[in-house]
């Protein structure tokens, strides 16, 4: 333990005499904090890959058929034509890989993998996860899957090109790249399930003495509930992927109707027929809950950040917990809202519409409670707080656009248009990714032991916030105009021609947005080595992770822990300071107060009571 303690405090320094070998420490580590960093590092790389793909998409949409500037000629000829312009084949691959990477290799690993791993054991006062070895397995499946997905580049026919939703028959008759995509998602799903089992066991079993479920910080609650969704939903996707794999690879017919006319496949060999909509049901049975997998941990992080920087107890803690539970539960009942126009029974459309409308209620509760948290607070607009504040506002826009789509008749028109693309990005970027930023900045001192650069952080925030809205808000207008998603060249349609200036505007914003992300990376890398040393509790927060040293050693805590109160006792009149950590014994609080009053009385007699 002692040895581990010492080596770990140098974790970021490198080059020191390590007890553990380099491989055990950095590669096959079973320490939850190292695994969290690995998830973060890998996911940020994928963020840039997925983002670069988005920029290619944007270039093509704004300037259809024009060569990509600077790098167009350098790209492989399977991607671009002779001039260096995006080809239609590559475009479909781009949007598929963009969606798949962003969802499965960026947001889920960042929110669940990184924050789940880093924050959960620390926040419940545990020394590690319940199954450290499985945790390592769960991480390593993820880069493996990511590489497999990208490996489509090297095979005949290129990468997967059926959208991130992979609807058969298109995905079932597609090339080798699609097969790799299926295998890759299967592995990522397996990794998620292992992680989910781990989080559930950890939270249920390893809380510090005295810590009840209702003493858990919102982040832990959110990850816990998310893990339950993962455990329920992901296996269904795995089953669906297995069948799609059979269709794709062994030419069975789960999702392929009997009489297709396709050049690439001799259908006469198969008797009996499959059902394309079956895939959609199974896929959305997972993937709708998955969108809540991608927002709930973010909501948890934002709740923690908001309460900390408003110096106020979280408004309606229990209501917030029940809202998460309600979102999770209802979230598994609404999958059909992605299929309103799919040819499923319209009666089902009605039921799914009602359940979808109902699920907005707990989201409303959360929104109003965040407002309540800010009411009469003492807000400090640090970088994590700015991102959290932006989250709330952007999530409301994204959520409200969800209401349009939930209404079945309106969805007839906006289904599969850029309205959906706008919605996706408001909830996934404006929501999840801003929450990721908030969390990254918030826990950066704990992770690295150093403070980030505040000024660069603010630049990053404002640039991102402004260009984000410039990029994605106009997409709603495009959607209202009827522009279909996943089209290579909108100018083919007469009714879309007037929108071309808007597409250009979006693209310019997207470019700035993309390059603004280098500020984040620069800030993190620079501060990791050169930043000011961080105190144990730089934000004066209450939760247990701030009791541990920054960065926490192997085994996390150097003091015995006991929990006496909830996580949000900010500005409590009991306490001398405006925060009251969960582990401070009540006697100690009283004693502190007594000491403080004595000192106050003393100083008052000395200088006539200017006080604090």
């Amino acid at each position, binding site marked *: 333990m002692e040895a581990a303690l010492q080596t770990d405090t140098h974790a970021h320094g490198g080059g020191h005499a390590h007890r553990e070998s380099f491989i055990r420490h950095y590669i096959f580590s079973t320490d939850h904090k190292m695994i969290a960093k690995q998830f973060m590092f890998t996911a940020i790389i994928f963020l840039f890959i997925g983002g670069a793909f988005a920029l290619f998409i944007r270039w093509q949409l704004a300037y259809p058929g024009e060569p990509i500037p600077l790098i167009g000629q350098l790209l492989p000829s399977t991607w671009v034509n002779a001039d260096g312009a995006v080809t239609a084949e590559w475009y*479909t691959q781009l949007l598929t890989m963009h969606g798949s990477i962003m969802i499965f290799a960026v947001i889920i690993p960042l929110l669940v993998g990184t924050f789940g791993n880093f924050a959960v054991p620390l926040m419940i006062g545990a020394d590690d996860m319940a199954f450290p070895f499985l945790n390592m397995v769960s991480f390593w499946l993820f880069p493996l899957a990511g590489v497999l997905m990208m490996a489509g580049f090297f095979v005949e026919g290129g990468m997967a090109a059926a959208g991130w939703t992979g609807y058969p028959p*298109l995905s079932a008759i597609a090339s080798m790249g699609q097969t790799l995509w299926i295998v890759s998602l299967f592995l990522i799903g397996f990794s998620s399930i292992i992680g989910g089992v781990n989080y559930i066991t950890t939270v249920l079993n390893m809380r510090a003495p005295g810590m009840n479920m209702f003493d858990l910080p919102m982040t832990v609650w959110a990850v816990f509930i998310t893990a339950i969704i993962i455990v329920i939903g992901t296996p269904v996707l795995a089953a669906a992927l297995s069948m799609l794999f059979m269709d794709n690879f062994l030419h069975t017919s789960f999702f392929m109707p009997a009489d297709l006319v396709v050049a690439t496949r001799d259908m006469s060999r198969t008797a009996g027929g499959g059902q394309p909509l079956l895939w959609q049901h199974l896929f959305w049975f997972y993937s709708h809950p998955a969108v809540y997998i991608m927002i709930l941990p973010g909501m948890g992080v934002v709740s923690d950040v908001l309460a900390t920087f408003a110096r106020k107890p979280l408004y309606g803690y229990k209501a917030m917990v029940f809202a998460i539970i309600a979102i999770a539960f209802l979230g598994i009942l609404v999958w059909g809202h992605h299929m309103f126009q799919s040819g499923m029974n319209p009666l089902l459309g009605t039921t799914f519409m009602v359940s979808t409308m109902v699920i907005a*209620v707990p989201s409303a509760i959360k929104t109003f409670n965040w407002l309540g948290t800010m009411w009469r607070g003492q807000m400090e607009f640090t970088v994590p707080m700015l991102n959290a504040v932006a989250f709330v506002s952007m999530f409301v826009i994204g959520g409200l656009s969800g*209401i349009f789509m939930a209404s079945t008749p309106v969805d007839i028109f906006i289904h599969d248009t850029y309205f959906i693309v706008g919605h996706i990005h408001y909830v996934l970027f404006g929501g999840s990714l801003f929450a990721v930023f908030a969390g990254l900045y918030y826990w950066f001192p704990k992770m690295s032991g150093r403070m980030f650069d505040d000024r660069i952080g603010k630049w990053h925030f404002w640039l991102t916030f402004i260009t984000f809205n410039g990029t994605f808000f106009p997409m709603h207008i495009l959607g209202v105009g009827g522009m279909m998603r996943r089209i290579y060249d909108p100018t083919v349609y007469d009714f879309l021609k007037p929108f071309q200036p808007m597409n250009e505007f979006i693209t310019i914003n997207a470019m700035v947005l993309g390059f603004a992300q280098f500020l984040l990376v620069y800030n993190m890398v620079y501060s990791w080595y050169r930043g000011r040393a961080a105190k144990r509790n730089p934000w004066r927060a209450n939760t247990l992770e701030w009791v541990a040293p920054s960065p926490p050693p192997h085994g996390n805590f150097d003091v015995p822990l006991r929990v006496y109160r909830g996580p949000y006792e900010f500005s409590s009149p009991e306490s001398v300071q405006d925060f009251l950590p969960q582990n401070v014994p009540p006697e100690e609080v009283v004693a502190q107060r007594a000491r403080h009053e004595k000192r106050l009385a003393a100083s008052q007699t000395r200088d006539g009571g200017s006080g604090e």
Partner: protein
Amino acid sequence: MLDWLPENVSVFGEGVDHLFSLIYYISVAIFILVNAIYIAFIFRYRRKRKGERAYYYHGNNILEFSWTALPFALFLFLAFYSDGIWEDIKYSDKTPNPDLVVEVMGQAYLWHFRYPGSDGIFGRRDSRFMATTNPFGIDPDDPNGKDDYVTINSMNIPVNKTVLVHLSSMDVIHSFFLPNMRVKQDAVPGQWVDVWFNSIKTGKYEIACAELCGSGHYLMRAVLTVQPQADFDTWIDEQYGSVSAALVAAGSPDQKNSSAPAATTPAVPTK
């Protein structure tokens, strides 16, 4: 924002647009309300002096109950209000009696339209005969099918008449999207779906495919011509005979899988 909507020329489109604007105004109102409070709080409750304490307060049950109940009521209202319109558009028992039935078949990357011909009866369909040359799988032995005719990427309908589209696909999923009619319906292979609409205005409109169906997805464009009944009738007469003969001859089952669909080189006029 709603000014950007393409012109609506369909009967039920008005209901859709009305609902759209209703939700739009509700959303804008909520957005402004929430964000006004939000921004006010941001300015009002920022920390001005160090050491000042926030209000120590954990929540108020009455308030929380009301902001649960109000949205709940609002959402239920929206759901039921929407459902009325939805039922009118999609439920098969509410579909008005059609004046014209057209079969539509999606193929990567074009739309086939089939009219019943002068006898007003579609010939028997048999999927065994389906091929790129006979997208609907019209049975060559059925006399009713002899005068059926099929057009590619162009659909003609009479104005102010209820048109019932019988929709399917022969390869992958497509989506039959008529922006001006407020119609969108996925065409699923192996399954026939009915869609109806009723145009109140003559003119040429665009038909698009709204579901990713391959790299030529963006090219899957057809033209809808809405004509006065008389013009439509002459159009029908012109078509009659010219297409059907060639078509029936082509429909032999052994050709079914040999001919490749235009997967890489879509035979579509782009403009």
